[in-house]
């Protein structure tokens, strides 16, 4: 086993006035060249897992694991320099709301170019050309206009595509998508997901999608891991969600609206 993300015994605890609060309590899973969903209600610790992988939790969080590696790189033990190359370069992360996740005072183009320059070691003109290509790849019809736009000038769906372009720029091998569509209008969710899916397959990436939307999981994922109170309570093929055994999964599924 060398390919992809391997996690064993991941624990995360936050400091608080009443002592440490355990958010993630011994989680094991792997993600290879596949699309894995981490599902659960809010507060189940699924977002914390996503951020812990990139060591992007606030200082009050304490991360521990028996094993947390990506393609053999020890994600917990490696120094900050090495980690910076992993972030963006090997593992990319898409956040929930493009209105907050893009810097409001920087043009979209500069933010994408920045991704290239942080990892590619390429010049400005070349980075700009590739950024425009990438914007076209996420099905933006007028890349030049979006390149020069500020985030507040874009619609939610357009913003999330720009975000995908920015994260894919450095060519990561694994993509963590934290609720990538829940802040978007229902009508554009599907198209954004379709673009994400298309690019993940085209680039041969792994995908870890963090969501509470079971319909999305059934349509776009290979496997689903169900989280509750910091633990994975059930792992099953995405197509088998409807036949889940665990009462919690069944309750989650029963609560999901049918489209």
């Amino acid at each position: 086993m060398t390919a992809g993300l391997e996690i064993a015994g991941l624990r995360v605890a936050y400091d608080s006035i009443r002592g440490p609060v355990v958010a993630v309590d011994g989680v094991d899973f792997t993600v290879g060249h596949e699309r894995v969903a981490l599902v659960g209600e809010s507060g189940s610790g699924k977002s914390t897992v996503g951020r812990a992988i990139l060591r992007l939790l606030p200082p009050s969080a304490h991360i521990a694991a028996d094993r947390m590696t990506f393609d053999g790189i020890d994600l917990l033990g490696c120094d900050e320099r090495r980690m910076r190359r992993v972030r963006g370069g090997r593992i990319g992360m898409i956040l929930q709301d493009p209105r907050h996740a893009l810097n409001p005072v920087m043009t979209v183009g500069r933010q994408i170019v920045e991704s290239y320059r942080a990892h590619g070691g390429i010049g400005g003109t070349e980075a700009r050309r590739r950024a425009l290509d990438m914007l076209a790849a996420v099905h933006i019809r007028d890349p030049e206009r979006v390149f020069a736009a500020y985030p507040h000038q874009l619609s939610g769906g357009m913003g999330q595509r720009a975000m995908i372009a920015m994260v894919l720029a450095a060519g990561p091998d694994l993509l963590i998508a934290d609720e990538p569509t829940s802040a978007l209008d229902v009508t554009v969710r599907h198209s954004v997901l379709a673009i994400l899916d298309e690019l993940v397959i085209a680039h041969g990436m792994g995908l870890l999608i963090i969501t509470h939307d079971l319909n999305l999981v059934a349509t776009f994922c290979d496997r689903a891991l169900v989280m509750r109170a910091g633990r994975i309570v059930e792992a099953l093929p995405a197509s088998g969600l409807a036949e889940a055994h665990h009462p919690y999964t069944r309750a989650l599924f029963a609560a999901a609206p049918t489209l």
Partner: protein
Amino acid sequence: MTVTDDETFRMARGRLRSGAVLAGSVAATILGLLLVTFFIGRVIPVDPVLAVVGDRASAETYAAAREAMGLDEPLWRQFLIYLGGVLRGDFGQSVLTGRPVLADIGRFFPATLELATLATLIGVLAGVPLGVIAAVRRGRWPDHVIRVVTLLGYSVPTFWLGMIALLLFYATLDWTAGPGRVDLFFEGLAQPVTGSLLIDSALAGAWDVFGSALDHILLPALVLGTFSLAYIARMTRSFMIDQLGQEYVLAARAKGLSEARVVWRHALGNTAIPLVTVVALSYGALLEGSVLTETVFAWPGLGAYLTNSLLNADMNAVLGCTIVVGIVFIGLNLLSDLLYRLLDPRAR
């Protein structure tokens, strides 16, 4: 020197008003300002004429001033006369100098502006980095040290700090020049163009004058700058903590950017917008703070002029200074408003 954090937040938030509303509100504020100064000058004193001409004035001067103030008219007409005078730039005569108050202000203001500008510059150059460091190291020792230092800057009476600085750096260590704007020997050597002695002497190539002027301004500017430094550092810290908690900072880190770039480019880039308001407010506070600082350093600016007028009960001069500084305050607010629109793409 009494800008508070809450006011700054309020001013930074309630920005986006339309041009017409803005112009109306500025006009109303200036009118209110004049109403208050009129009240202070004409209604509070038992004998407003005496307040203007001083108690050593001759009977003729007294009668002339009484005539000019229109004291027999009803109060509202008196105010209109006063308003008309001020709008024409007539702030009355100064008892102390015997010249029109506005001319006096024009003569003394540049020295104050020069001092306040340099002090603000010191405040920005030192305050912003300190605030950023405190925010990044929040809750750890650099934050605590910076917090104590900035609270000291908030708490120290500047006139006293000025005296201690003179005692230490001038009288004891002899590192800097003493009170005054320039050595007596160089007095009046540089041709006044801008009114700033530093700029004027540099323009004329009179480097010995420049050196002496720099030597003289450094200590008062540092003393005055302590408040500005403390205020700017505290607000920078506060804004930065806000920004560092935003999602885009997480996204920037997730892209693999260096921590320096995340902090100084992304987070500080967003912090710079509300900071414009802070710098404008602190500049205003320094104009005010210069009243006491100039007294201590015998700096020939507006503050020293105002203090002299106060001690001699020269009411026209006192109110003239009040109006001018008040209008500069309003102007600074307006300026920060415009800069805000220019800097924030969301406000364009």
